[in-house]
């Protein structure tokens, strides 16, 4: 197992270098000049322009800029955003808990509903529940996220008034806690009603963000289960006189989990990378929104730094998924 993890970690090295090159090149390939954008509508004189370019290092040749960036990374320095003048890493870490909290809630919702739904649909293949569920999943998967979010806001926020429209916390409370997770920090703060407010703010974004992963997980679970339910060992389990819950939920599902874990891993990756639309619609102060803003401002350091961290997170999630394969199916472990 240790050897497996180490060998996978080794493959991180070329991937990591590749990501630095891509993230470095990507933002520079976009038309537009950061200093001109920074100067705003009044424009900027040539002398001042050169001064600023020298200050940010844009006057250096590309390969030099790239090497500076690379050496910075290995010293734990992702550069300084030239818009906010704060270190990119600090900015990222300040915003990431918001994204992480939302992503965790969304993926939990998607997994906890999606897997049982897929199992029940597969066991009742072709019956009403199966067809209703698969149709719903298809609708959920194909629905434009911004429209779905707006529908929910119209019904539950402005119509019924059950949930707040945007943000993470009501203005009545000031929460600054150790974890950055509003749900936990509000509980720790001891302020009355703060937890309820945090929860209420989470509900709609969670539902919106969970919709697509939920649909994908339910469909994937169903198809994987259908394949597995015809296997001989499922018949063996039934021949032992085991209850359907144990046959389907343990013997079959365990074998069906490999493709399901794959799609869960992929979903986690994309969710953590920032749910740009969802965060924008609900004014959720996470990294998705931050990345988009940074791209518009041509904030080179912020974009390349942010992309790099996200890529590393996705790589770690993928490694976790690979390790999980082995935990689920011993055949893979011993290969």
């Amino acid at each position, binding site marked *: 197992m240790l050897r497996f993890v180490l060998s996978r970690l080794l493959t991180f090295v070329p991937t990591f270098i590749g990501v630095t090159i891509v993230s470095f090149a990507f933002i520079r390939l976009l038309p537009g000049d950061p200093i001109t954008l920074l100067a705003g509508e009044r424009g900027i004189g040539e002398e001042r322009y050169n001064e600023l370019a020298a200050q940010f290092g844009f006057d250096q040749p590309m390969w030099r800029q790239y090497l500076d960036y690379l050496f910075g990374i290995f010293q734990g320095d992702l550069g300084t955003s030239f818009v906010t003048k704060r270190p990119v890493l600090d900015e990222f870490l300040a915003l990431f808990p918001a994204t992480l909290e939302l992503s965790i809630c969304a993926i939990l919702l998607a997994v906890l509903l999606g897997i049982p739904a897929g199992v029940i649909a597969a066991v009742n293949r072709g019956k009403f529940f199966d067809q209703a569920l698969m149709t719903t999943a298809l609708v959920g998967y194909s629905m434009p996220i911004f429209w779905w979010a707006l529908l929910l806001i119209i019904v539950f926020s402005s119509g019924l008034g059950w949930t707040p429209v945007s943000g993470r916390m009501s203005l009545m409370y000031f929460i600054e806690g150790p974890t950055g997770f509003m749900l936990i920090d509000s509980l720790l703060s001891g302020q009355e009603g703060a937890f309820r407010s945090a929860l209420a703010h989470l509900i709609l974004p969670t539902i919106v963000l969970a919709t697509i992963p939920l649909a994908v997980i339910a469909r994937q679970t169903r198809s994987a289960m259908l394949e597995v339910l015809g296997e001989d060992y499922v018949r063996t389990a039934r021949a032992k006189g085991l209850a359907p819950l144990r046959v389907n939920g343990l013997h079959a599902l*365990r074998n069906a989990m490999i493709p399901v874990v794959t799609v869960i891993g992929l979903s986690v990756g994309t969710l953590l990378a920032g749910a740009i639309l969802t965060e924008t619609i609900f004014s959720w102060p996470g990294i998705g929104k931050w990345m988009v803003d940074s791209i518009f401002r041509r904030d080179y350091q912020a974009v390349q730094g942010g992309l790099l961290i996200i890529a590393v997170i996705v790589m770690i999630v993928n490694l976790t998924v690979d390790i999980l394969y082995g935990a689920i199916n011993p055949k893979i472990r011993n290969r």
Partner: protein
Amino acid sequence: MPLLEIRNLSVDFSTTSGSFRAVDGVDITVEPGDLMAIVGESGSGKSVSMLAVMGLLPWTATVTADRMAFNGHDLRGMTPKQRRRIIGRDMSMIFQEPMSSLNPCFTVGFQIKESLKKHTDLDRAGRQRRAIELMQLVGIPAPEKRLTAFPHQLSGGMSQRAMIAMALACEPKLLIADEPTTALDVTIQAQILELLTGLQERTGMALILITHDMGVVAETVNRVQVQYAGQKVEEQEVGALFDDPHHPYTAALLAALPERATERRLPTIPGVVPGQFDRPEGCLFSPRCRFADARCKAVEPVQASREMGLALCHYPLSHGEPTNREKAS
């Protein structure tokens, strides 16, 4: 009282192209401690009839029977829950493909102890002890070590032994072995059959062996039931059956045994078992029967007397010659 008594069992599968009758009015009687075989080609409904008894058929199957009783309990009126208390404990089954019949995600020990946990009051230590005992019983060396092995670490023969251990976990009164040796090497086949008959003798359970191999039948069982295209066509004691088969199908099966062949070329039965769309009129075997005449192709035969092996034939054979023919013409 018979251990298993089945009268007029039929199984229909609903398919997209209509209903298909896989088992057609089969009777099976098994006494306690019986050792019998159900023989027939692929598609003759042997496995399906036994899966129906176990209640393991998919939901597309409809099972009907005039009587279906195990150990005095009517299986037809049982709720699934009542039935699950019997199968795996008093009545268990092993299958054709041992390698794919064990769940690849769980250790052999887990899968054996699971049955014990479901059907017995043994505690954790008791289940471990019983599992080791079972592994020894089926001849698996180093049982403690093998209990922690995953199925892919076992050979085919070992897997089938583990399956047998699992089936025997709760000392069943009836073991159904569905072609237990078909997927195994010839040398291993003999070992597994020996193991099964030895266990049958030792425990006194009844054993139903489903097979298409007449050679296996001759060496293993006491009584034989021959099925063809979902129908029971003959039933006899094994010695009598080999001496004097009464149904032309049985005779043809026996003639196809290499040991009994007299010609240079091995005799075969031309054609295949009829499927959903090519079921003939009259006797289902008539298109492949060398004795069939116009009556066979038009009128469904009825069961002959017990002396004639309950043969489902208009002209049951006696020492290789059709009888009753004069009476018909």
